[in-house]
């Protein structure tokens, strides 16, 4: 049928557009960063210098900032997220579970620039006075504490990141937990178990893989988050050595420096940073897909 053929080709063509756009982005990242790799090689990844005047560029501080802020964010978001998901899915009475679910989704819906604004103008001020100043002044000599009490540092950025990725973990974990057959859960209750024991011994082990995949996806989100982080992380070129040190992620470095960057090696270096970030985030998507392959509902439908 002519109509069918045309329609099929049309939809296929649109599908190809999706592939083409992704491909174009990949190509552009590779080509655009070419000069950087040929100039610095892998040294780009290990160098800590970012000096447009001297023409020296290195990614290490930003990779370090990205990784540490994301790991710290995960350290907070994973327990809180899983706890929330378990609470909603297993323990909360319906009247409470529904509002909590909505609340979590609304957190996800808040634009990151607004979270950044709040983080900059409210959270960092609160933290600076009540948390950071006391700790830095008294314990600043301890390792991993850091030196900044301004509130614009790794700590604040990690908190914001944690807030932003928690809904991902909650939503996906809740789905996975709900998909564990009730029969297994009830089986433990039939032996005289409490509801918590049924969750701990039967439901969570069965949901382990799915929850892990959810966390990997959340990690990917954390790695790539730009605006909120840029607003509170302190915009420095140094590798952070302490919790209360200013830092910079790959994304925030690109965002901060792009407009003033001179066309040429500097922009190419920013593109190279983008490539590194793209590789990091795409790896998490691929890893999550592999982990969750064939398990339950489709992973991570987008917002």
């Amino acid at each position, binding site marked *: 049928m002519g109509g069918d053929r045309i329609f099929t080709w049309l939809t296929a063509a649109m599908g190809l557009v999706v592939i083409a756009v992704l491909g174009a982005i990949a190509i552009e990242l590779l080509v655009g960063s070419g000069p950087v790799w040929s100039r610095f090689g892998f040294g780009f990844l290990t160098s800590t210098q970012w000096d447009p005047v001297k023409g020296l560029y290195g990614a290490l501080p930003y990779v370090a900032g990205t990784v540490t802020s994301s790991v710290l964010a995960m350290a907070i978001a994973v327990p809180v997220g899983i706890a929330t998901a378990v609470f909603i899915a297993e323990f909360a009475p319906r009247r409470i579970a529904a509002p909590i679910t909505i609340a979590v989704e609304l957190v996800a819906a808040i634009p990151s620039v607004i979270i950044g604004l709040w983080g900059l103008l409210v959270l960092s001020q609160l933290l600076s006075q009540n948390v950071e100043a006391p700790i830095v002044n008294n314990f600043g000599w301890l390792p991993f504490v850091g030196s900044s009490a301004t509130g614009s540092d790794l700590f604040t950025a990690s908190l914001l990141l944690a807030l932003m990725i928690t809904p991902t973990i909650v939503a996906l974990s809740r789905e996975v937990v709900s998909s564990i*057959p009730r*029969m*297994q859960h*009830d*089986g*433990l*209750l*039939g*032996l*005289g*178990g*409490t509801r918590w*024991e049924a969750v701990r*011994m*039967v439901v969570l*082990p*069965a949901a*382990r893989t799915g929850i892990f995949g959810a966390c990997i996806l959340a990690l990917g989100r954390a790695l790539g988050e730009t605006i909120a982080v840029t607003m509170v992380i302190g915009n420095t070129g140094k590798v952070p050595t302490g919790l209360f040190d200013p830092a910079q992620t790959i994304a925030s470095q690109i965002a901060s420096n792009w407009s003033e960057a001179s066309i040429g090696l500097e922009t190419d270096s920013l593109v190279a940073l983008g490539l590194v970030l793209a590789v990091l985030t795409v790896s998490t998507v691929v890893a999550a897909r592999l982990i969750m392959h064939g398990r339950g509902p489709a992973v991570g439908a987008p917002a």
Partner: protein
Amino acid sequence: MPAPNVAGFHARDEAPSQSATEPAGRPPLRAVPANGDLAGTAAVKGHVLLADVTVSYGKVPAVRGVALDLAPHSVHAIIGPSGCGKTSLLRAMNRMIELTPGAHVSGRVELDGRDIYAADVHAPRVRRVVGMVFQRPNPFPSMSIADNVSAGLRLGGGRRRGVDLNQVIETSLRRAALWDQVKDRLKSKAMTLSGGQQQRLCIARALAVEPSVLLMDEPCSSLDQIATRKIEELIRELSRSITIVIVTHNLQQAARVSDTTALFLVDDDDRHGYLVESGTTERIFNGASNELTREYVSGRFG
């Protein structure tokens, strides 16, 4: 007791009575005394008593006004067509019914003289003492065979003092007639077993916590004939030490396996289940008092 002439009925071995207070042979079924005085009944372990029990979901009753006296160390069958509330009633006996939102039980359900729905009795405690085997085998998939069996014992989060888990695992698997088949692969995952084996694993798991009563909800309905036969033999064997209540839609199975039978039907007007008649299996199948019973067991309807 002379062997009744219902086809397939196995003559039951008479286990000599151990307790001085237990009457010789089986305590005859009788209606619950109106004044609720159980003084005449020895409070042996595993005596289940239902008095005017109604199970409803919201305002809709599933089964109404049930009075049953289930003597210890016997197999009690509950039969009837689908929709008569058999499963609801069974789940009311170990408070699993509470897991269904809106479910409500009225009347008295007593275990050894104590109302299991009393305010100071906790549901997990009831379920520890009144075990359950579900319709479809439900071993815990993330656990090995051994861990499945010992799951009920590990609920405290650690070993109970003085309990040798391995010994209990072996004993339970032997009682469930599964030991020989799995003794070499106790660490492998439970899901590698066949359906019949999984169900016996679930029975072993239930036995490991040493319940006084074991509730079985159509335990053979998803199994083949051979597996079914094995489990029926198991039931007969277990009833020497445990009270067993088995819901089954299979009349022949009820006749084969049980000491007493209770027939439920659906009330035409109100669409709820009710107890038609209960008594020794022999009497129910060969000369019941109620005409409906006679018709049902002879297959004339249902």
